[in-house]
């Protein structure tokens, strides 16, 4: 009897120091790799800092990360593995909106909170109360781009290029189109392509014939860079701009001179003088050989800190309690701004507009939500 009691005490003791598992799904390889690589660094930094402070609830955090290879279907498989076998307390992901949409129903059914750090399509968090995000959503970004095109670029006629195989691009184009028309602009041409396409000359030739004042491409960075390059090759000299899917070092690498002067949306600016940003950039540079983080790293960092904060407030890693604590996140100070989770489980944060100058992103303006 006494032995059993001692064993029980020992088991509870081991339990108490057993680490809390945090799942992470990232596109570490494949065409969205730039997002995953950057986001993963942010998540790692956050986990290490929390553990250096002694962890949460007296327990250390253990990161269980996996690569979805930017392939459709893999995110769902990984999410099942993380909730089923690894029994993680929560999942953070720097995957695209379509990747997060795969994981969402699985996390919802397993009652494991899921925090998307950069998926901006509204559908991701809709109708599922275990799914959160810590970035702005496409209706906000699209409206901002429509206003920017009309007032700052002075573009009355804009051509839209949409990647029809990603919900993110389709949604962003729709919002942009609606808002731009509502503000009195005209859509000069509406062209489409599919993810993985490399030849955009056909679409751009049609766009050129429509003579737009500017072109918006709402897809991701690889295609965006090729679009800029081919547009310049075809003699299209009008401004090109896009959403936060453009943000990656590859945009400058592939695009070269063709992306000089393009505009895109971001979640923060590394040039900001806010103390949180300066400190984050300093720590990041010290750890990753002097590189300057794009916005996916601080988003992953903030997402992980928000999860840790919620675990501390919930006093537990049980799904429903953690969910309630996450939903109650209020005025959480992060690198990408102050996070307050609203009733739709979204964070309203400021967006930043960047331009490319001398092969480097440069701050243009910040737009408050």
């Amino acid at each position, binding site marked *: 009897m006494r032995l059993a009691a001692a064993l029980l005490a020992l088991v509870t003791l081991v339990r108490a120091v057993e680490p809390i598992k945090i799942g992470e799904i990232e596109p570490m390889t494949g065409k969205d790799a730039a997002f995953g690589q950057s986001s993963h660094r942010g998540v790692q930094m956050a986990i290490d800092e929390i553990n250096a402070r002694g962890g949460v609830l007296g327990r250390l955090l253990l990161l269980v990360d996996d690569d979805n290879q930017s392939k459709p279907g893999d995110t769902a498989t990984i999410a099942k593995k993380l909730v089923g076998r690894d029994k993680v307390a929560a999942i953070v992901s720097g995957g695209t909106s379509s990747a997060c949409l795969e994981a969402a129903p699985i996390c919802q059914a397993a009652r494991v909170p899921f925090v998307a750090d950069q998926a901006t399509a509204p559908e991701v968090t809709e109708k599922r109360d275990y799914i959160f995000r810590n970035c702005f959503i496409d209706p906000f970004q699209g409206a901002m781009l429509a206003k920017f095109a009309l007032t700052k670029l002075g573009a009355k006629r804009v051509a839209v290029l949409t990647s029809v195989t990603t919900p993110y691009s389709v949604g962003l184009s729709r919002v942009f189109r609606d808002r731009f028309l509502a503000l009195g602009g005209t859509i000069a041409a509406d062209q489409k*392509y599919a993810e993985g396409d490399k030849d955009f000359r056909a679409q751009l030739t049609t766009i050129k014939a429509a003579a737009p004042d500017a072109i918006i491409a709402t897809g991701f960075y690889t295609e965006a860079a090729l679009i800029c390059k081919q547009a310049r090759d075809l003699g299209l000299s009008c401004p090109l701009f896009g959403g936060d899917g453009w943000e990656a070092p590859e945009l400058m690498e592939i695009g070269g001179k063709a992306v000089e002067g393009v505009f895109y949306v971001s979640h923060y600016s590394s040039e900001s003088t806010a103390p949180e940003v300066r400190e984050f950039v300093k720590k990041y540079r010290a750890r990753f050989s002097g590189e300057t983080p794009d916005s996916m790293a601080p988003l992953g960092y903030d997402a992980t800190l928000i999860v840790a904060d919620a675990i501390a407030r919930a006093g537990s890693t049980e799904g429903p309690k953690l969910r309630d604590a996450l939903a109650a996140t209020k005025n959480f100070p992060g690198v990408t701004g102050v996070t307050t989770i609203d009733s739709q489980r979204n964070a309203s944060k400021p967006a930043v507009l960047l331009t490319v100058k001398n092969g480097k992103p440069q701050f243009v303006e910040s737009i408050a939500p």
Partner: protein
Amino acid sequence: MSEFLQQLLNGLSLGAIYALIALGYTMVYGVLRFINFAHSDVFMVGAFIGYYVGKLVPEGTLWGGMIVLIASMVGCAILGMTIERLAYRPLRGAATLNVLITAIGVSLLLEYSGQVFFGAAPRTFPQIFPSANFSVGGLVISTNQLAVILVAVLLMIGLQFIVYRTKIGTAMRAVSLNPKAAQLVGVNNDVVISFTFGLGSALAAAGGILYALNYPSIDPLMGVMPGLKAFVAAVLGGIGNIPGAALGGLILGTVETFVNGSQWSTYKDAIAFAILIIILLFRPAGLLGKFTVEKV
């Protein structure tokens, strides 16, 4: 009008690349009667050899570009012959299905070893040839597009010459006509088949370099879609027929570009493949292929 001409030029330069890859499919089919599915991955390896060699020579020079092109063609010719020696030759005489499945296996092997050795993230292909754009009456022509068409035409003329005017070409046609009879008159089948693979792979490498010049983002799975399209082009023109493959590639590239520039761009692959089905309904052996009854 200038929009139409521009689209035609875009289509021709895309079609020329499809044609170069299609030639490899069609040559191997002509000689061995099987589809070498690994061909599209040789195309990918060609682009990657170009990527690595391109770092060693100065960017934007003609001679540098030629070195890259030749290095990649030679590298891929060796790769093609090695694949044939190791994977296909032991199966000579076995059922076609066995060879076909082996080809798919080799294709997957190349794709995923590519992910291991080259990494899965897309790479930026250097601008190895000097490039410029000039406009002629509203028509913008880039030297890259011209280079694609020019190199493709030159290689096809060279190929036509090899097949019809040289001894090894005559041997190739003999093996294609009847391998046993060719052996009886003293043709070394192994050498001819090896040569065919080398030649086809070299053309795929040239296609890979030209593709990467025009679309400078390369990854280990880049061959899959162009390979499929080139295969369709080869069938469209009449598989086993060299001018047919060139014609098929040009038709496919042009159709794809025109559909892409219209409002039905979402259906571009569907339309390209629908055209294939329609042509095959009326001409089962392809546009230039001869219909023969196979004897059992």
